[in-house]
């Protein structure tokens, strides 16, 4: 018997229909699924938080956040996810990064590969904050949730991670939402339905 093909699938394969939807001709909300991400949860071993931070600095060139927040390096974002732990987001690439991370943190931190455990949805656009006010209880005001802010919060009673990146072109805010894969179909529906009123472009 020959080889099998292992085509990967997005949890949004049904829910996300690329194109322009909803009211108006100028979409107020942009929704993008970021595919093929590498997502690793790094949890320092007992007493090794400082050592884990040093290794992260060496590996990514940036210190992981020690309080809720996101730090951005070259092609990588480190997002706080709890005391002495953080998430590493990077492009999946050729798969070698995971090995390098595993080698670097061996004995210092426990790693949990969550690349398939989360679905990453990026939200931007002039009306994004208005749409997000419908499904997030967070205060997204610039003074309260600036670039680099991150939170673990709930969306439709479901835990998610959110962090704000540097503003998109046109200077509209840009947010990343990491949602559990099994909930992605359902939560995307909430996000899209909340955006239709303002016009939505999805990709």
């Amino acid at each position: 018997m020959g080889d099998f093909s292992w085509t990967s699938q997005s949890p949004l394969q049904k829910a996300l229909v690329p194109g322009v939807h909803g009211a108006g001709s100028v979409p107020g909300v942009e929704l993008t699924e970021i595919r093929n991400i590498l997502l690793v949860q790094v949890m320092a071993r007992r007493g090794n938080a400082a050592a884990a931070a040093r290794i992260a600095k060496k590996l990514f060139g940036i210190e992981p956040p020690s309080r809720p927040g996101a730090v951005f390096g070259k092609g990588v974002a480190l997002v706080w996810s709890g005391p002495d732990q953080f998430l590493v987001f990077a492009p999946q690439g050729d798969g070698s990064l995971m090995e390098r991370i595993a080698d670097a943190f061996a004995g210092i931190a426990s790693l949990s590969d969550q690349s398939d455990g989360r679905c990453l949805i990026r939200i931007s656009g002039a009306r994004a904050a208005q749409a997000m006010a419908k499904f997030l209880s967070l205060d997204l005001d610039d003074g309260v949730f600036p670039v680099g802010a991150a939170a673990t919060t709930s969306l439709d009673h479901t835990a998610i991670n959110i962090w704000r990146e540097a503003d998109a072109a046109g200077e509209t805010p840009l947010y990343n939402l990491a949602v559990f894969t099994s909930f992605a179909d359902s939560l995307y529906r909430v996000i899209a339905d909340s955006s239709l009123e303002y016009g939505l472009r999805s990709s």
Partner: protein
Amino acid sequence: MSGYIESQPLGRTSAKDDAAGNTQATGGTQSHRLRAGGLIDRQAPLGFTFDGKAMTGYAGDTLASALVANGVKLVARSFKYHRPRGIMTAGSEEPSALVEMRTGARREPNTRATTQELYDGLVANSQNRWPSLRRDFMAVNSLLSPIFVAGFYYKTFMWPAKFWEKIYEPMIRRAAGLGKSAEQPDPDHYDKAWAHCDVLVVGAGPTGLSAALAAGRIGARVIVVEEDTQLGGRLLGDGGEIDGMQAGEWVRRAETELEALPNVRVMKRTSLFGVYDGGTYGALERVNDHVPVPGPHQVRQRLWRIIARRSVVAAGSIERPIVFPGNDRPGVMMASAVRTYVNRFAALPGRQVALFTNNDDGWRTVEAIRRAGGEVSVVVDSRGQVPVEYQSVVKASGLRVLSGCVSDVKGGVDGVRGVVVTGADGRRQEVAADCLAVSGGWNPNVGLSCFHRGRPAWRDDIAAFVPGDCPPGMRMVGAAEGTFALGECLRDGHAAGVSAAVDCGFAEDAGSAAEAGDEGYAISPLWQVQAKGKAFVDFQHDVTASDVTLAQREGYESVEHLKRYTTLGMATDQGKTSNINGLAIMAATTGRSIPETGTTIYRSPYSPVAIGAFAGHNRDENFHAWRLAPSHHWAAARGAVFVDVGLWKRAQWYPQPGETDWLQSVSREVTTVRNGVGFCDVSTLGKVDVRGADAGTFLDRVYINAFSSLAVGKARYGLMLREDGIVMDDGTTSRLAEDHYFMTTTTAKAGPVMQHLEFCRQVLWPELDVQLSSATDQWAQFSIAGPRTRELLQALCDPAEDLSNEGFPFMGAREVKLRGGIKARLFRISFSGEMAFEISVPARFGNAMAENLMIAGKPFGVVPYGTEALSVMRIEKGHVAGPELNGTTTADDLGLGKMMSKKKDFIGRIMAGREALAAPDRQVVVGIKPLDRHRRLRSGAHVVPKGEKPGPDTDHGYVTSVCFSPTLNQWLGLGLVTRGRERFGEIVRIYDPLRSEDYEAEICSPVFYDPEGVRQRG
């Protein structure tokens, strides 16, 4: 209410228009529309129908003001007596003018005509009448009113008891009640949203605007909510002069300034309805109630949760009716409402208006009516004297003023024709009038201050309750706090705005408040006019003054009892116009003071909120979030039938062409697995990565059996208890590396178990080096079962992988390479009792795995199977699941007592040793087989000893899980039965009163299939 009319009202009525000619109709149907003035747009006429009759109004009208402009007085029938009713107020407190808005699926009963904005094509109908509003057959109730008094349900319809459900209740419900709700699902969308601010300002009258300007100018993030379509509050109806300009001009400037401030957000058409913990406020925005149908993708209403650090509540006050016979006739209207209709809407409620007042403020109505060209036929002031500032007016104009009370109102369905005035000397005289304006004084709107159980305080000088203790962070100000003078309202609002902003860390430099005069307000309370006839206290619930005194006579003296016995204040208006009058009458009847009598508890919502708004997005298929297994779309494409398991959608079975019944499909799936091979997506089971140097120790403490001794590359079944010794959950846990265990839980308990583990890690044993992460969503996991499983896997796996019994023994667990380049985790575990493996790959390969299992298994006749087949096979094999792990069973009850380690401590060990939990007569898991092989066993049926009468003393347990076993060709079950393991072979009675079934069955071992376990080890 705030401030006196010192100059012009907001409308643009000029002095020239003050001529009598102004009362003439402006053409069309609007017989009572003034020629000029008002905040309406005469360039934008709007057509509407009421009870099928076509009329017109203007943009800026409410349905109520348009009806007033059209000379319509009769708009409703009352709740209980079907009395003709008109429009009483011009605000959200309206108790009488309730109509059915719209038609079909959008039909909405009990809409207050006073808050419904007019739109072109609006369709409204009166309700609670048959066959028509004018000739309402049910008005006969009014004649029967002696039996409809307070507490009539309890007295009249007591016997015979069985008549209640079939006859009395349906009859009462038909006779009473208001409008009818739509019978189809609401086609509109509703949603919910959050908003955040430093200072929330509730109400945009002069006080609220002053507060918002002050807080906004110094940089605080301000949200202003205003239930009306326009800012201004009472200024819209009463005008005034602020900072040397017309009140209207001041409001326009304030609005412009607030709009220009980026830190201020003004939300019109938004009612604040609740105050919750932590500075959270509930508000309802009527986004599209003022259009026939919301535009595409638009919402009808939006429910806001506003989180504010401080709030300034400037909710104003509500004018109070006076209780006298005939006070509910169409055309009897609050004096402030008369002024609002005249000044704001340029609509004259009557051409010959009588005024009945007990305070100075009511007198303003005289000026408003006269300026509009109407006639004031009489002013009745219960206090016996004309206020000083009106004495010259009275003298100059020859205004007829009577000292005394209105003791009756003449008229019929078409409204007021005259009023009967009884003087202080008892002399009665009748005065012609087509409208009666009533002012009983002003009640500060204290409701929001009381939602955290604050009790309002009584103030004698204004004869009203004012706010007591407010919820944290809230301050009441302006008329809502009992301050009625316009200048004082502006100053207090300003100070409250500054103070709230300063509390949030902003500088104090907000300039000074706008200025206006501080006129006085004098009142001598008059609650009730003693005279013969029906005098209404609660107009919406048809509670009269005599109902209140009757309640007192029957012993219901407490206001809380009064409320329940008479239903006073329990209608949708929550007694905004009636509660205080009701308790004042009760106070007088019992000889107590009003503060001694007290108020009932105020509760949210302040004004009615549609259930649809609370539901928002979460209706129909979006009722709650759902989870999809990695092969969901593959299964859906194959026509799988799905079942909700918690939030998950799981494939229940996969019907094939020709199968007509679920049992056919399920039995085929079971038979195929038992004789060949099948697979099932089991990704829904909880998966937890447990890592760290102390991971083994950690698991030893949470499981009843040992895991630190488990070899790397092995899996073990584990059972965990709650602290109280009852079984919490089970699953297999594998050791993938020295410091890495991979735990699985049941689908249902995945969340609670993760929570429990985190509690253990963070709170109980923080000293252990353990890290946890949920991996449930990371992996697509499939169970592959049946005698040909190994052959299928050999086709799927890299040829170098040794899957023989020696190379991969039962309970082995390790990573394998698959053909095509990806890696998988393979576990040799079995739930079905067959030779079986579970295989996991990253979730993105879920669909591909299902497809490849079909390809690899094709030569062996592979089938996908669903949760039903899974359940059949576990029952045949006697494995326990949810129905047995039901929160009442111990490890021993499940037949797993021997797993409890004696060499170590674990959660639940001590408590599991309690006498009752270790008693020999506990109900334990057994197998149950009906004697009649064709008999369908049903779960829930009781187990009773043969020959005994079923009852609590003979109830020996019940059937927990059942299935039709195609393998044994009969129905089987598991059950929990007293001393069950000692009773194998005993014939018992299965008694099922819910389904009227009664038959015999044999108690047996729960393991029906392959008790030696040969097949799973083969």
